[in-house]
């Protein structure tokens, strides 16, 4: 508690951890490259340096607030200081801005522009290092790294992995996996959070846009899209619309305009996931199968279990993720020559996620030896494609999904936020579908952005213990507690990214606290607007299980280990 004077204005503070947050709370924007409220304080970039009344300079991110402090944030001296920092960073940085995938979203570029760095006085003597294209999801270009350490901290602190680290010292310093290994040779789960926190183009999404454009241009190819729940609340703000606004109809219309032959909503197979996973859960409970059941919709999490907790691999649900279910169903549908009409089918899944790119090429994601998902496009890439296609997104009229797979339930929509899968399972298991029942489920402790949530739900005379986790560091904690017997659960839902897919590794950046809340609210309100709330009430479920796909559920909807 206390007061400090910032630029001559008295500002009150309470429990802020550092001077920087007080400055920002006071409405003054100080640039930072290495500071993130969710990560530990690193103090590497020095851009947040401020000056006190005695002329002392210090980094505000790592300074504890004291009552009576007098600080200045934008003096001439500080302006020069910050400009020099940016200039020195650029001195050892790749300068091919125009062809950099991060151009326009790059923090360094933005700072250089706003600070008026129009010329770099120093030559770049850095050796050109090879770019790592080994990962199916992430491209790592060490030549664009500014050593802010964000990726290093996010990987170890939020994701509990520590794949990336610093190596060497001084001018030789670099960020790399141990022994300069390629990302594909590490325990990297492709979650993409490093890319979310990277201020430059050093860590970016491995793009599949070209493959999609090519397929769209081929008359003999039927291009089919499926759109994941979390995408619809993260596109609008790139086109000047409200944060978190549900723009599903506009996305569908844009894809149609781009030339997609059919556009579907992944919530349809989210519903199938719920049908299958609930059945699997009840079967395991009844027949003494491995418990806790671990959800399998998040591929980063599935890889995490395989690498870090191989003893518990069998606990992972055999259900494919909604993405893989949808692609398998689509491909099977068009295996029938009557449906195919002589065309090839190319399935594009539009995801908030980079790990989905890894999942698409995972061995068990193939059916009958064929690749089910042909390309995965993240939300970030989708926005780029919409712009590239010359679509006026804010003006385009909404359209609805196509048939025969175009119906999903509200339960499927909330898959995109942590706790959503569990909520959907609980809706499926509940007898009624009245507002009171649904309300009680919503309020049982599974909503909200905490990283670890627990609840106990009565079902058929049994107390079902559930844990809902987001963030892999949290998941590691829970798994260790389960392994050493400290905790006991029947069901554990894990999403690798904190807060779930709405903050996935493929979502547009930057995304601050306002985006987080707005995106979650956007999905819950989309659910609220749906007529069908429960997966089992989706009319397409009956069509699936008793129609063309009768007897094929196991082959198409489950992984076969």
């Amino acid at each position, binding site marked *: 508690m206390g007061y400090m004077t910032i630029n001559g204005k008295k500002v009150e503070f309470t429990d802020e951890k550092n001077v920087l947050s007080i400055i920002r709370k006071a409405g003054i924007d100080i640039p930072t490259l290495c500071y993130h409220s969710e990560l530990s304080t690193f103090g590497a970039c020095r851009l947040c340096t401020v000056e006190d009344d005695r002329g002392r300079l210090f980094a505000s991110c790592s300074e504890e607030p004291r009552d009576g402090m007098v600080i200045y944030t934008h003096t001439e001296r500080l302006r020069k200081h910050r400009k020099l920092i940016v200039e020195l960073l650029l001195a050892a940085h790749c300068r091919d801005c125009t062809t950099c995938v991060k151009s326009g979203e790059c923090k360094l570029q933005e700072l250089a522009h706003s600070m008026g760095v129009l010329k770099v006085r120093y030559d770049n003597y850095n050796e050109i290092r090879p770019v790592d294209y080994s990962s199916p999801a992430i491209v790592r270009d060490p030549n664009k790294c500014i050593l802010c350490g964000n990726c290093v901290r996010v990987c*170890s602190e939020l994701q509990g992995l520590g794949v*990336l680290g*610093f*190596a*060497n010292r001084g001018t030789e310093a670099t960020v790399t996996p*141990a*022994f300069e290994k390629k990302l594909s040779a590490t325990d990297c789960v492709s979650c993409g959070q490093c890319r979310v926190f990277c201020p430059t183009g050093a860590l970016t999404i491995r793009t599949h846009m070209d493959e999609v454009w090519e397929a769209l241009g081929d008359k003999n190819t039927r291009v089919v899209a499926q759109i994941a729940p979390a995408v619809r609340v993260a596109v609008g703000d790139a086109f000047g619309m409200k944060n978190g606004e549900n723009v599903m109809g506009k996305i569908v219309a844009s894809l149609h305009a781009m030339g997609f032959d059919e556009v579907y909503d992944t919530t349809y197979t989210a519903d199938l996931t719920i049908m299958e996973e609930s059945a699997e859960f009840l079967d395991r409970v009844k027949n003494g199968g491995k418990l806790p059941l671990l959800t399998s919709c998040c591929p980063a999490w599935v890889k995490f279990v395989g690498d870090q907790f191989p003893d518990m691999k069998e606990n992972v649900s055999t259900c494919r993720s909604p993405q893989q279910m949808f692609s398998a169903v689509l491909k099977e549908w068009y295996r029938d020559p009557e449906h195919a009409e002589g065309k090839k089918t190319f399935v594009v899944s539009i995801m908030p996620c980079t790990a989905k790119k890894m999942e698409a090429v995972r061995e068990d994601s193939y059916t009958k030896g064929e690749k089910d998902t042909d390309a995965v496009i993240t939300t970030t890439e989708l926005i780029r494609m919409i712009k590239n296609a010359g679509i006026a997104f804010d003006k385009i009229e909404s359209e609805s999904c196509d048939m025969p797979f175009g119906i999903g339930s509200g339960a499927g929509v909330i898959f995109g936020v942590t706790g959503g899968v569990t909520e959907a399972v609980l809706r499926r298991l509940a007898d009624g579908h009245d507002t009171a029942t649904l309300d009680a489920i919503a309020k049982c402790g599974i909503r909200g952005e905490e990283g670890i949530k627990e609840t106990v739900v009565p079902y058929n005379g049994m107390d079902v213990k559930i844990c809902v986790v987001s963030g892999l560091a949290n998941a590691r904690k829970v798994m260790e507690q389960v392994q050493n017997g400290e905790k006991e659960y029947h069901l554990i839902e894990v999403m690798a990214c904190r807060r779930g897919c709405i903050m996935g590794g493929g979502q547009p950046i930057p995304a601050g606290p306002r985006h987080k809340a707005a995106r979650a609210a956007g999905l819950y309100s989309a659910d609220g607007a749906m007529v069908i709330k429960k997966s089992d009430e989706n009319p397409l479920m009956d069509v699936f299980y008793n129609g063309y796909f009768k007897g094929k559920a196991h082959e198409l909807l489950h992984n076969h280990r």
Partner: protein
Amino acid sequence: MLDKSYYDKTDEIIEHYGRKASSLIPIMQDIQAEYRYLPGELLTYVAKEIGITETKAYSVATFYENFSFEAKGKYVIKVCDGTACHVRKSTPVLEALWKELGLSKKKHTTDDMLFTVETVSCLGACGLAPTMMVNEDVYPAMTPEKALAVIEELRGKG
């Protein structure tokens, strides 16, 4: 794949310092003292045993010039290139050694694994400049001729 004896020895060293993150540097030093270098496989093994990530261990090992992932020769020659030694002409000494042994800035160890030549920033013996060390022995007031004589002598010993 390293021989099992390497892992046994490493276990012994880890036991001595305790299975904790703060034991990392002394453990690495002892492994390097034992094998004249730090085998990467052992670093990975140590990291797992003391409960840190491989990346973190690699980060520490590469931060310090002293740790080497490459096998070093039987005789490790450290030519001091600190300020005092440098002004008293340590560079010709280094160059003479490089030329004689066919080494360079990039290649530190002879193919027969007999010699490794590296530079150090200061040996703390500026009064003896230019100074050179061969394993634990100090050679004061070096000249290119004296350095080559040392090489001849060591070659004789094999």
